[in-house]
């Protein structure tokens, strides 16, 4: 184990996990080791069904690994902890609450020293930051898909989590909305420091948002390839079309292809 790994805010150490289903046992993760440094942002890509969501559930403490360990801030994860914020492909907003009340939901669970006025102010600030000012009192059904996803991001961040876990949050959006949300992500990252894990199927998204891209092998997944990206922080969409970016994309695409070919038959 490298010393650098110890400083990682998120650390996954030799994790293996097998699901038991009706049709037998399904090994999903095999000796997976990876780390994300504090305030780093790592994208995880890999073939469909290889176990990416399982990784996020392990980090969030929603699932216990069969073998190996998961660490957050130097503490082993044994159960869910409120230092985590999560957003999924499905924004899962609660239809009976206004957007503001949806965003404030985590504050009702996580104990905090903030007064109720301060909590509301915090939620409103976040909504403003993602461009949802004026929609606080609307119901989720009155918003577009992109706007709902923005609200979902606010909810994931409202309790100022150390760790933000994003499981394909932009996967269901159209290309333009998605690019908009990428910019929003960079804005959020500047205003609200967090350590992030992003699961995505979109390689462009991965290199636009992350500091590092990890390619997982086919199931059972392990780290197949790691690509550190030269740039941190905000970047412009034009940078996705430079020769360097294209080269990175090609390398990643090649790696995904290898990962898919290496998959166990019958999956």
């Amino acid at each position, binding site marked *: 184990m490298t010393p650098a790994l110890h400083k990682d805010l998120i650390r996954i150490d030799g994790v293996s996990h097998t699901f038991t289903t009706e049709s037998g046992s399904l090994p999903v993760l095999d000796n997976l080791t990876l780390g994300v440094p504090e305030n780093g942002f790592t994208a995880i890509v890999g073939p469909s069904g290889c176990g990416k969501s399982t990784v996020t559930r392990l980090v969030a403490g929603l699932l216990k690994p069969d073998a190996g360990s998961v660490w957050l801030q130097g503490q082993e994860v044994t159960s*869910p902890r409120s230092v985590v914020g999560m957003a999924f492909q499905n924004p899962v907003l609660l239809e009976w609450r206004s957007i503001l009340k949806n965003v404030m939901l*985590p504050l009702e669970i996580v104990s905090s020293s903030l007064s109720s006025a301060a909590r509301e102010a915090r939620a409103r600030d976040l909504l403003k930051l993602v461009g949802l000012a004026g929609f606080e009192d609307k119901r989720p059904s009155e918003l577009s898909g992109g706007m709902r996803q923005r609200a979902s991001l606010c909810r994931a961040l409202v309790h100022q989590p150390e760790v933000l876990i994003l499981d394909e949050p932009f996967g269901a959006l159209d290309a333009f909305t998605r690019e908009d949300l990428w910019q929003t992500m960079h804005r959020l990252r500047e205003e609200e420091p967090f350590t992030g894990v992003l699961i995505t199927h979109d390689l462009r998204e991965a290199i636009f948002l992350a500091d590092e891209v990890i390619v997982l092998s086919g199931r059972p997944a392990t780290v197949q390839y790691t690509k550190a990206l030269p740039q941190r922080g905000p970047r412009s969409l034009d940078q996705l079309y430079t020769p360097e970016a294209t080269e990175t994309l090609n390398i990643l695409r090649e790696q995904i292809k290898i990962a898919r070919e290496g998959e166990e038959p019958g999956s």
Partner: protein
Amino acid sequence: MRQVFVPVLAIVLFLLFWEGLVWVNDWPNYKMASPSDLWPAFWRFKWLFLTFGWETLWRTVVGLLIAIVVGVLLGMVMGFSRVLREGLYPLLVGFNAIPKATVVPIVALMFVGQHDLNTVLIAFMISFFPIAVSVSIGLSTLEPEYRDILRALGASQMTIFWKIALPKTLPEFFGALKVAVTLAFIGTNLMEIVSPHGRGLGALFDSGKTNSDYPLMFAVLISLAMLGIALYYVVVVLERIFAGWAERQTD
């Protein structure tokens, strides 16, 4: 305004049509009483209608309340535990499949003389099933992400139930409650008709039958319909208050 006017107009038209139909065909009372025959029947037995209507109403409501408590508890148990769901479901379906008309005389004999208990029991037995099923389906089909957003923050199962599972199930619950109201009403009346020396509108109907007082029988039917409508709309109002958010999307 329109919400009141349109239904009232519909009722008036219906009564006119009914009156006209009887008049045109020159039907005798025993075949079909006409609305104009009903007023005298109502008036003659107005105190009976009031007291018996009240009996029918409170028994139905009590039966329904018990059905809600038992139905929601059963639904919760089946919604949260797959094993219990698989175990209880066939039992419930079988129980529900028994025509309640056959259960009525059995219950009437089992607790002979306890008319209130019998009636409430049948109202409950006939109406808890849709409630239990809707709650269990609502809870078991809750997408895992909904649980996860709260679970990831360390929320307890109870918090998840109150904040997410329960409100999310309310629209289904009220849908089932509308069905249950009508069913409970049927249950109450079945028992009232069958029980000897019974009370309630069902018993009034029965006495109309033994005395060949056809306008009285029809008058009972009309008052049953009115009670049914009233109960149904109470549920609709409750639904607006507690699950009004679910309506918005279809507007």
